C-alpha cells in the first residue's frame, strides 16, 4: 500500500510534466500543408522491454502541439490522459499493443532495493494498460525532446522541424533511470546516450512507402533490428547508438547489383499467369502452396483478399478432422505436406505455429516420421523450419507418449543428409538421389537448398562444394539438366533455386556457364509466351513446370536484386491472420441436412446464407429459391441479422419460393453483425408425399437469384453459383455435422470430438437415442435451426464417419435425454452476464469444466478451445441476439 506522501510526490511529479500555460488550443490544420517533420517513438527501456512503438517520421501542421502529435502517433484509443490536447495534457496509461517481457535492468533494481522497496508485478499482456504507478510507485510516463527533458507539458510545446520526441516509461527517479538529471533529488543513474540520430534513422525507414523493399536489401533487416535493439537498450552507449544508426543507413542505401540476365518480362508474365489461372489457391502440391510461395516472394501486389482467402481455406482444411484426423499431422507418411504448407504460410507472413489453432511444425519434431518418406522429408523439413526461422518443437508436445529418442533436431536432419551423400567418403562423393549411385540434379539441388543455411559447418560446406561440382558436371551444353533422361524445366528450376541460395550466380558463375547458355537462359527456353512453362521442350504449358519455373525466376530475381534468398523469409512482412469468418463478396450458399426420411410429412429446415453484404444502402432484398417437387414450403423466416423490414413469401405454381424483405416506408434495410457466413433466411420444408429412395435418391434445392435493390435502379446481385444443396432420401435419415474437436490446450481434451446428429423419419418423442451405447445430448437450438430432432454426440476423433451415419449404430430406448442450451454455462436456463463471466472464469481456470455437457455449454464458438472468444460470443448473443456459431453449423 503506497503511503499518502508517496502519492502526493507522484502527483507533484505528474503535475510538473503538464504545467498549463494557457497556450492556444491545438487545432488540426490542413493536411495539405505540413509545416515540417518530426520523429516520435515510445519505449520501455526502463522495464527492459525494448521499444514498444517503433519510431516514425511524421508531418506536423499549423496549430499542432506534442499532445496532438502523440495521439496521432499512438492512436487515441491507445492512450488515456487527463487534461486535454490543448491544456494540461498528461498521459496516465498507454495500451500495450503486444505482449512484453519485463526484465527491469539491474541498475534500477539496485536503487529500488537501496530504498528498502521492491518492484511489483504489472501489466505485460497485449491489450492491457501500462499506467503510472505500475511496477513501482514512482513510475509514470515522460518525454524528451531531442534527448533533453521537456520543460513543459506536451500540450504546451509546439514542434519544430527535425525534432525528435521519445516517450519513455520511467520506473525510478522520475527520469533518473533514463539517464536524465531531472532535479527531483535523483541523480542520473548513468550518462544517457543521445539517440536522436538513431530514432530519426529508424523513423525514416518506417515512414518510407517502400519500407518493405528497403528492408529486403541484404543485411537491412538485421541492421534495422540491431538499431531497434540499441534504441530499446537502457544503457546503450553513445558509440553503440551512433554505430547502429550508421549501419542502418548504409544497409538501406546500398545499391543492388545489376541483373545479369533480364528476366523481367518472363517474371511479370508468369506471375500474371499464376494470378489468373490460380485465383484461389488451395492446399495441394499444384494450384496451392508453390503458387502462393512464388507470388508472395516475387513482391507483386496480390489481388485483394488473395492471401486472406487462402489462409481461411487452409484453416478450414487443416481443421477438417474428417480429412486430417491426425491434424496437425497432415499425412500419415509424408511430412512434406506439413513442410510445404509451412513454406507458403511463412511466405505470406502468417504464423505456421498457429494455423487455426494448430501448430504445423509439431509433426516435424518426430525424426522417425520426418525420415519415413526418405530424403525429401528432412530436406523440406529443414527448408521449412529455416524460413523464419522456426523453433524445433518438443516431441512431447506433439505426442506425449512418444519415445523421446525420436526427438528431431536440425543437426540430426543435416547429418541424415550428409550420410545420404552419394559415394560419401570416397573420391567420387557428391550429390544426392532418391536411389542409386548417380546424383540426380533435382534431388541434389533440393538438398543444397536445405543445407545452404548450415554451410558454416565444415562438413556441410564440404558436402556442398562436392554437390555443386556434381551439378556443374551434370549440366548440358545449353545450360539445362536432365532427370531420368529427359531435359526438363523442373530440374533447371531446382538448380537455380539452389545456386541462388548459396550465393552463386547461375548466369555468370563459370561453373554453370556452358558453351550455349547458362542455367537461367536454359530455363527461359521452356517459357511459353503469355506466361507459364513447358515441362519438356516439345510440350505445352505444364502446371508443375510453371510453378517450379515461377519460383526459380523469383529466386533468381531476388538474387539479382540483392534480396534475401527465396526461402530466407526473415524479411517476410508479418501478416495478421484474417478472422476465420471474414466477410466475402456476397456468395449465397444453402445449408441443410444431407439426408431426410422419404416418409410423407418429414420436416427439415434449410438456411440461406451469405458470406457478405454490399456496403451501399438498399431498400429491398428479394430471392427466388427453386424447391424440388418432393418438398413443400411450410414457412420462411428472416434471420434476426436482417433489420429494417419484414419478410413476405409465396410459392408460385412452379414450386419456386419467392421472398421479399422490405418495409412499407422503403427505408433502408441492413444486415447487422460481423460474423460470416451470415444467415438470411430459414426455410421450413416438408416432404410432400412418400418418396421411394430407390426411385428418387435425392433432390436438389437451388437459388435462382438473390438481389438487393434501391430506387431507382440500383441493384446488387449475390453470387449464386454455389447456392445449391442436395438432400438424399433415406428410410431413416441421419445427417452428421462436425462441430469441433478439442486440441487439449484450453479445457477441451484432444479426445473430445463433438458432432451434431440430426434424425429424420423417426419419432423420438419420449426416447433417448444412443450411439453404440453412449447417450446423445439433446440440443434444442440445433433442433429448432434444422427442423429435425438434433443431438450432440461427443465421441473419439477416430470414430469412423461410416459408423456415425449408419442407422445400426443407434438405438432409441425410452427415456429423457440430457439437454444442453448453448451458452448457458451455469445451466439455469438463462443466458446473461453470469455465463459470460463463467466463460472467462473457465479460461482463467477458476471454474472447472469437466463434463461433456459443460464443454458444450461453454464452447459456443465451436472451435477447439474454451477461451475468451466464447465470452465475447455470449456477450454478442445477449446484447444483439447474434446466434452462437455452434448453432449455425
Amino acid at each position, binding site marked *: 500500500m503506497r503511503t499518502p506522501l508517496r502519492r502526493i510526490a507522484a502527483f507533484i511529479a505528474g503535475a510538473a510534466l503538464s504545467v498549463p500555460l494557457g497556450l492556444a488550443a491545438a487545432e488540426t490544420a490542413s493536411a495539405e500543408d505540413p509545416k515540417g517533420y518530426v520523429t516520435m517513438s515510445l519505449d520501455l527501456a526502463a522495464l527492459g522491454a525494448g521499444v514498444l512503438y517503433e519510431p516514425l517520421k511524421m508531418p506536423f501542421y499549423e496549430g499542432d502541439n506534442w499532445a496532438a502529435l502523440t495521439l496521432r502517433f499512438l492512436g487515441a484509443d491507445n492512450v488515456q490522459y*487527463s487534461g486535454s490536447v490543448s491544456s494540461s495534457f498528461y498521459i496516465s496509461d498507454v495500451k500495450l499493443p503486444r505482449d512484453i517481457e519485463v526484465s527491469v535492468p539491474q541498475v534500477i533494481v539496485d536503487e529500488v532495493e537501496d530504498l528498502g522497496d521492491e518492484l511489483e508485478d504489472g501489466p505485460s499482456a497485449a491489450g492491457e494498460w501500462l499506467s503510472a504507478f505500475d511496477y513501482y510507485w514512482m513510475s509514470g510516463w515522460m518525454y524528451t525532446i531531442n534527448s533533453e527533458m521537456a520543460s513543459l507539458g506536451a500540450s504546451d510545446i509546439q514542434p519544430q522541424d527535425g525534432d525528435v520526441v521519445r516517450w519513455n516509461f520511467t520506473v525510478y527517479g522520475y527520469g533518473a533511470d533514463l539517464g536524465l538529471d531531472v532535479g527531483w533529488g535523483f541523480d542520473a543513474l548513468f550518462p544517457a546516450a543521445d539517440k536522436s540520430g538513431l530514432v530519426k534513422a529508424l523513423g525514416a525507414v518506417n515512414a518510407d512507402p517502400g519500407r518493405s523493399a528497403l528492408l529486403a536489401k541484404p543485411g537491412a533487416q538485421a541492421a534495422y533490428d540491431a538499431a531497434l535493439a540499441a534504441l530499446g537498450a537502457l544503457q546503450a552507449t553513445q558509440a553503440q547508438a551512433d554505430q547502429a544508426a550508421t549501419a542502418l543507413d548504409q544497409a538501406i542505401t546500398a545499391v543492388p547489383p545489376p541483373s545479369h540476365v533480364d528476366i523481367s518480362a518472363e517474371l511479370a508474365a508468369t506471375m500474371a499467369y499464376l494470378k489468373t489461372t490460380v485465383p484461389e489457391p488451395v492446399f495441394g502440391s499444384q494450384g496451392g502452396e508453390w503458387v502462393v510461395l512464388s507470388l508472395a516472394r516475387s513482391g507483386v501486389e496480390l489481388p485483394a483478399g488473395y492471401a486472406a482467402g487462402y489462409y481461411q481455406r487452409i484453416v478450414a482444411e487443416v481443421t477438417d478432422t474428417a480429412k486430417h484426423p491426425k491434424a496437425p499431422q497432415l499425412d500419415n507418411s509424408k511430412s512434406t505436406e506439413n513442410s510445404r504448407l509451412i513454406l507458403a504460410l511463412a511466405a505470406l507472413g502468417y504464423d505456421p505455429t498457429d494455423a487455426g489453432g494448430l501448430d504445423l511444425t509439431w509433426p516435424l519434431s518426430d525424426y522417425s516420421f520426418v525420415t519415413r518418406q526418405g530424403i525429401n522429408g528432412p530436406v523440406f523439413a529443414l527448408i521449412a523450419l529455416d524460413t523464419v526461422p522456426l523453433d524445433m518443437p518438443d516431441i512431447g508436445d506433439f505426442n506425449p507418449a512418444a519415445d523421446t529418442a525420436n526427438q528431431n533436431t536440425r543437426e540430426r536432419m543435416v547429418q541424415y543428409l550428409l550420410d545420404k551423400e552419394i559415394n560419401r567418403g570416397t573420391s567420387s562423393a557428391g550429390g544426392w538421389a532418391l536411389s542409386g549411385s548417380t546424383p540426380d540434379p533435382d534431388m541434389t539441388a533440393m538438398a543444397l537448398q536445405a543445407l545452404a543455411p548450415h554451410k558454416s559447418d565444415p562438413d556441410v560446406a564440404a558436402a556442398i562444394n562436392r554437390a555443386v561440382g556434381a551439378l556443374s558436371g551434370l549440366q548440358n551444353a545449353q545450360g539445362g539438366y536432365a532427370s531420368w533422361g529427359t531435359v526438363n524445366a523442373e530440374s533447371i528450376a531446382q538448380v537455380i533455386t539452389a545456386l541462388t541460395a548459396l550465393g552463386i550466380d547461375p548466369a555468370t558463375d563459370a561453373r554453370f556457364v556452358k558453351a550455349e547458355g547458362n542455367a537461367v537462359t536454359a530455363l527461359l527456353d521452356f517459357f511459353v509466351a503469355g506466361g507459364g512453362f513447358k515441362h519438356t521442350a516439345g510440350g505445352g504449358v505444364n502446371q508443375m513446370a510453371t510453378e517450379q519455373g515461377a519460383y526459380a525466376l523469383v529466386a533468381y530475381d531476388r538474387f539479382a536484386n540483392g534480396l534475401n534468398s527465396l526461402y530466407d523469409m526473415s524479411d517476410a512482412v508479418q501478416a495478421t491472420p484474417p478472422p476465420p469468418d471474414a466477410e466475402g463478396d456476397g456468395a449465397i450458399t444453402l445449408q441443410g441436412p444431407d439426408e431426410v426420411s422419404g416418409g410423407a410429412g418429414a420436416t427439415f429446415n434449410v438456411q440461406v446464407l451469405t458470406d457478405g453484404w454490399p456496403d451501399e444502402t438498399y431498400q429491398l432484398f428479394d430471392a427466388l429459391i427453386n424447391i424440388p417437387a418432393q418438398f413443400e414450403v411450410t414457412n420462411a423466416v428472416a434471420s434476426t441479422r436482417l433489420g429494417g423490414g419484414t419478410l413476405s413469401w409465396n410459392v408460385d405454381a412452379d414450386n419456386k419460393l419467392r421472398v421479399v424483405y422490405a418495409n412499407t416506408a422503403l427505408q433502408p434495410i441492413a444486415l447487422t453483425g460481423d460474423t460470416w457466413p451470415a444467415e438470411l433466411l430459414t426455410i421450413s420444408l416438408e416432404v410432400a408425399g412418400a418418396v421411394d429412395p430407390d426411385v428418387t435418391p435425392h433432390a436438389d434445392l437451388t437459388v435462382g437469384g438473390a438481389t438487393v435493390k434501391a430506387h431507382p435502379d440500383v441493384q446488387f446481385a449475390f453470387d449464386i453459383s454455389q447456392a445449391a444443396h442436395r438432400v438424399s432420401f433415406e428410410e431413416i435419415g441421419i445427417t452428421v455435422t462436425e462441430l469441433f474437436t478439442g486440441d487439449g490446450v484450453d479445457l477441451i481434451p484432444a479426445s473430445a470430438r463433438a458432432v451434431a446428429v440430426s434424425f429424420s423419419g423417426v419419432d423420438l418423442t419420449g426416447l433417448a437415442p444412443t450411439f453404440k451405447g453412449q447417450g446423445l445430448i439433446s440440443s434444442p437450438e440445433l433442433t429448432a435451426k434444422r427442423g429435425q430432432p438434433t443431438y450432440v454426440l461427443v465421441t473419439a476423433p477416430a470414430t469412423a464417419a461410416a459408423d456415425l451415419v449408419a442407422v445400426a449404430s443407434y438405438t432409441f430406448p425410452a427415456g429423457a435425454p440430457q439437454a444442453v442450451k448453448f451458452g448457458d454455462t451455469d445451466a439455469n436456463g438463462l443466458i446473461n*452476464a453470469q455465463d459470460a*463471466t463463467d466463460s472467462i472464469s473457465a479460461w482463467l481456470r477458476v471454474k472447472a469444466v469437466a463434463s461433456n455437457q459443460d464443454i458444450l455449454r461453454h464452447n459456443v464458438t465451436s472451435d477447439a478451445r474454451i477461451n475468451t472468444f466464447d465470452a*465475447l460470443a455470449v456477450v454478442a448473443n445477449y446484447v444483439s441476439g447474434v446466434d452462437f456459431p455452434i448453432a449455425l453449423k
Partner: protein
Amino acid sequence: MTTGQQPADGFASGGPSAGAVSSAHDAVAATGAPAPVRGLETGSQGAGSPAGLAGAGRRRWKWVIGIGGGLAVLAAAALIWYLNWGPAGVPALVLEKPAAISAQDRDEIVVDVRLTNLPEGVYPGASLAVEFDRGKLECVGVRQGTMKTLGGAGGFSIPIWSVDADYANREGRVNAMYLDQTGETWAYAPDGFAKGDADILLRLVFRLRDSAQAGDELDLRVKDAVLATTDNALRGSSLATADRTLRAFHTTVEVAD
C-alpha cells in the same frame, strides 16, 4: 417506498423501500408487530373503590411497562433481522422513475438504474434485461452511470455497458451487459460503490414514439439482472434476480398532456 415504483415479482408488494428503514417504527410496521394491549383501559375489572382503583392503576402501569419493554426488544430484534437478513439486506436494482413527459416531447428520457447496496465481492460481469413497449418507446441506448469499477487512472473507472439499440427496438427488450474480460482488474466492487454518489449502475435512454399518448403509463420491467462473480459456482456469490439474491424494482414512464 418511492411513489410509482413497483417491486419485482416474488417479493411482497407494499414493503418498505429497500435499504431505507429509517426508524424502529417503520420496522415495526413492516413486520406487522402486534398492537399494544389496550384491554386494561376499559376498566371492566370491577374494582369500584378509589383505593381499589389506585391499586388497579399501579398494576396497569406494570403491565404497560412490561409489555412495552418486550415490544422494544422485539422491535430491536426485528430491526437487526431486517437489516441483515430481511429485504433490506438483499441488494436491489431500482429503476428510478423519470419525470413525466409530454406526449409531444421527443427529448430523451433517462432512467437511472440504481443499486441499493453492494455486498463484499468482486463482480466482473453484469447484465440487465428490461422490457419496454417498443410500440410507444424507442430505445436510444445506455449511458454511463456513477458506480465505478476497479482499475483505470486513479484506481477506478466508470464502465460503458454494451447495448444494441436496434436489437432492443426489435425485441422490445433492452439487453445491456458489462464484462471485464480480465476477470477482476476492472470489476465492480464495494470500493467503487457509494450510496448517493456512486450507486447508479447505468442509465437507460429512451424516447417517446409518435404513437405514445397523454395518459399512457409505459412500463419498464426488469426481466433479468445479475452482477456476476467468478466463483458463483462454488460460493453462490453472484447477485441475480433469478436466484432472488438481487431484487428489482420496475418503473413507468408517465406520458402527460
